């Protein structure tokens, strides 16, 4: 066994032991909550080399420095942009995701997704000045033009915190929609744009609709919700410079989830592109809606999965869009793009695979899993953060070629988990590169839509996507429970039914499975730090056990009894009536619910889809009891 795989073996042993102790204690003390505590046994991750995992980068206003957010090492790096070397490092909170630079360049703000904080850092000394509290799961952030207010997208809270930077306190929270991720201040500073990773919750048999939230910075209120139909996973937001009638580019994924997945073999199943959002100049939202055009970045026979980072050059001539799962950055000639859009003004471009050839002038190879991209203020270079090989790709903008690769440091050794994560985000294993595992499991989670995975028949056996967080001990897998382990789930079955390709070899599969098993659960925001339940949660816990919910959702095994059961959720479109009992860990983050995603909220599971009392005898419950039960479920 190689040294790289040693941690995995160690992890397994300790994991089992810890789980056993937890379980025994739980039984001994009769405490369902104790038994329910997520096993803190991610020792494989704990023993991993500390990879940097750069996810985001921003320039200082003078272009001298580049600040790089390293998600995997809880650090922010300062890079000398001219010398192209790391010159400083500061440790921040847990799982940092983005950085904002104050207008004067003297202060940096780093969002810490798992700490629910923002680290305020002195840019000169790279010392932490203070830590600001945010909502749940902060990711994207920006200051306003004066540097007085910080806007922070809270991915778990589904809202945006506005923080008064003079006092260091949150002054209000604005509702985004679902999993707001990326934030951008408009060039005129009148608006803040927020992209929502997950689509609106809607009927499971209808195409998804995603939202770009627009905040009026003068009113500090939501001015508009720009709806983008048929797409999910809105990512970075780039605004074209220097024109009165400006436009935004927002990368997205366009799934054909209502069609049988077998169509992957014909191509055009998952397509990848960007929304071109034209904002009415000076118009009052929401009375005047912006014009949204969707264009694809894919070619006819080759796809560019994982569109993610987006940026314009300062002169607006080019835009760069990274494809995280294709390891490519596409260079868009904006003059050609605008000409193309004018020419095709009345055409529906959202499903056309022949568009990109009109305006994509280069496809440049990047490092592994390119995420954010930034262009230097002088417009000479574009820097791309390659998340899974700890490098920055530097592109010469004048020549449109890769100039160099900057190694940020971090371990040289590539562990099994790291290899597995790289495979997880590699679309090359899929026919024509249409998607990777991470395409439908963004942030190792879910994409919020139901898929026609199981049969080749249109409209039959649709199943909601399920999270990959904390699933190591929740076998069997799939809604029909047919996959006894993750090896089966990710192995030949994935190759045959999902990727329509040869799939992973044995060694790759082992690494991939190790990675998937290591995906941790995020902190529970509904549970107090000391584990103390609120009165409503206590009442809900009593309901949970009085109603015998633990029969199918036993606390000791992540609230799944690990078999299939009929809760009356099958419809006439389902071949089978038995479905795998899902684990309930962090259930508040896994909407929609039931096997087909028909229940959009936890309440609907019982109010709309348990009419025969098959999903627990709940028809005698009062509304108060149901509310309490749901409050308890959120603590799991």
């Amino acid at each position, binding site marked *: 066994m190689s040294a790289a795989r040693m941690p995995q073996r160690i992890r397994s042993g300790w994991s089992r032991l810890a789980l056993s102790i937890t379980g025994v204690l739980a039984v001994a003390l009769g405490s369902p909550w104790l038994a329910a505590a997520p096993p803190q046994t991610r020792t494989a991750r704990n023993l991993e080399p500390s990879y940097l995992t750069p996810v985001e980068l921003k320039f200082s206003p003078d272009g001298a420095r580049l600040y790089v957010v390293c998600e995997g090492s809880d650090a922010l790096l300062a890079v000398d942009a001219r010398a192209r070397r790391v010159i400083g490092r500061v440790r921040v909170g847990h799982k940092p995701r983005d950085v904002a630079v104050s207008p004067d360049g003297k202060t940096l703000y780093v969002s810490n997704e798992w700490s629910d904080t923002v680290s305020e850092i002195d840019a000169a000394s790279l010392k932490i000045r203070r830590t600001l509290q945010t909502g749940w799961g902060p990711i994207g952030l920006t200051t306003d033009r004066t540097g007085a207010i910080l806007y922070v997208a809270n991915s778990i809270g589904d809202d945006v915190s506005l923080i008064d930077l003079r006092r260091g306190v949150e002054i209000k929270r604005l509702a985004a929609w679902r999993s707001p991720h990326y934030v951008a201040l408009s060039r005129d500073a009148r608006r803040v744009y927020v992209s929502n990773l997950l689509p609106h919750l809607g009927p499971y048999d209808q195409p998804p609709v995603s939202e770009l939230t627009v905040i009026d910075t003068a009113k500090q209120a939501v001015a*508009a*919700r720009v709806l983008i139909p048929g797409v999910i996973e809105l990512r970075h937001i780039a605004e074209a410079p220097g024109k009165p009638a400006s436009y935004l580019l927002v990368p997205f994924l366009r799934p054909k989830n209502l069609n049988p997945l077998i169509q992957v073999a014909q191509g055009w199943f998952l397509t990848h592109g960007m929304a071109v959002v034209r904002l009415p100049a000076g118009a009052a939202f929401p009375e005047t809606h912006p014009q949204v055009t969707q264009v694809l970045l894919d070619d006819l026979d080759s796809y560019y999965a994982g569109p993610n980072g987006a940026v314009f050059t300062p002169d607006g001539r080019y835009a760069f869009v990274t494809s995280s799962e294709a390891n490519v950055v596409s260079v868009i000639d904006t003059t050609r793009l605008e000409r193309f859009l004018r020419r095709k003004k009345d055409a529906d471009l959202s499903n056309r695979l022949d568009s990109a050839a009109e305006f994509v002038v280069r496809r440049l190879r990047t490092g592994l899993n390119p995420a954010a991209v930034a262009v230097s203020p002088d417009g000479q270079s574009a820097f791309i953060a390659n998340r899974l090989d700890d490098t920055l790709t530097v592109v010469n903008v004048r020549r449109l070629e890769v100039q160099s690769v900057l190694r940020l440091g971090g371990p040289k050794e590539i562990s099994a988990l790291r290899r597995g994560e790289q495979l997880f985000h590699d679309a090359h294993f899929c026919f024509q590169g249409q998607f990777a595992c991470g395409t439908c499991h963004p942030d190792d989670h879910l994409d919020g839509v139901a898929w026609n995975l199981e049969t080749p028949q249109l409209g039959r056996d649709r199943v909601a996507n399920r999270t990959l967080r904390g699933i190591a001990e929740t076998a069997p897998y799939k809604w029909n429970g047919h996959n006894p382990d993750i090896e089966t789930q990710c192995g030949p079955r994935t190759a045959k039914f999902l990727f329509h390709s040869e799939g992973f070899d044995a060694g790759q599969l082992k690494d991939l499975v190790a990675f998937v098993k290591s995906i941790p659960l995020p902190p529970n925001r509904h549970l107090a730090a000391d584990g103390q339940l609120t009165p409503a949660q206590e009442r809900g816990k009593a309901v949970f056990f009085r109603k015998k919910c633990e029969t199918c959702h036993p606390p000791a095994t992540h609230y799944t009894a690990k078999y299939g059961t009929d809760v009356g959720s099958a419809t006439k479109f389902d071949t089978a009536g038995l479905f795998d009992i899902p684990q309930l860990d962090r259930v508040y983050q896994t909407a929609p619910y039931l096997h087909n995603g028909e229940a959009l909220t936890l309440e609907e599971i019982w109010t709309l889809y348990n009419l025969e009392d098959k999903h627990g005898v709940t028809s005698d419950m009062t509304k108060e009891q149901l509310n309490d039960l749901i409050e308890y479920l959120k603590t799991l």
Partner: protein
Amino acid sequence: MEGNKRRSFRVLVAAWLLVCVPALAAQHPHLYTKWENYTRANGMPDDKVLCVTVDGQRVWAGTESGLVLIAEGKIQRVFTPQDGLAHRVVTGVAVDRRTGDVWIATFGGLSRYSGGVFQNFTNMTSGLVNDIVYAVAVQNEYVWAATTAGISRLNTRTGEWSIFSDRNAPMHEPWSYGIAVAEKKIYFAVWGGGVLEYDIAGGYWKPYTDPDEEMEIVLFRNQGLIHVIVSSVAFNPDTKMFWASTYFGLSGYDGRNWHNYLSTDSGLASDFINATQSRGDEVWACTDKGLSVLNYKTNAWVTYRPDAGTGRGEIIITGPGNKVSRLDSPDSLAHNYIVNMDFQGEDIWVATAKGLSHGTYETHKERKPHEHTENSR
């Protein structure tokens, strides 16, 4: 001869009052003589207007057939379930001053209008206790909804729904009609249950009920709430009093004493009151026989209502000693059955059974209304 003299005198007084009507407008209580009405004839989806809420320069009006947005003196939009609204019957609107989001009480649940998009919360899809929602209010990050089955509270940050009803609050009846948010407390109008006071910091309840427990007789005039059938409640931020409208009179409580009013011995137009509002030294009562306002410093009442015969406005001023003056104005409220009202600066917006009325305050002249008495009771 004497009769002619008296007649001439009356004509002179009437003419003088007509000239001076605007002059009466600026002192307390104000007189509103200029009304603009919004009905089906000029774009309202329904004449039955159930609520009105001022949102800066915008006005939201709930009707039996949708939600109306008025700005710059025009009906800008009419929202119906086709636009995403939870139900066509809109009974209450509250604006979150911090976020700008608009919360809408309907007969089909609660809607949030934000950035041009509706999001709905119903008994089936959320923790809302009942879909018949009569009123909604925003208190920091909490949204409160008064429903037929009790009060629901949504924590907009955590998504937690709480229910307060006869099971866990001192309600004789769960049927809640109105909400008023004060600084440290929230007041609820409960139909048949009086007024409930909720202490925000302590999380405890205090009920206010009718001490004589008589349905229609007021035995103890100022010893408590006038009646337990409370249709709405308002908090006056200036005097810190709360006011409760009942179907049997108007009650106010200043923390020590009750101040109750009946139509029999005051200028209140009717004891059947649908809603109340209060600010400064004024309390307004939306009755089934007109819109009454009391200046409780001067003890002067003014009632506005349309004259069914002429279509012109009738203004009844009742001064101290119940001296009554009657004026008329060329414009009037859309109807004398008043359902709800709100302030927009010095202007008022009034929801009636036959349209929405906008009363404009004219600032240029001032006289005290009770100086011009025509007769007395």
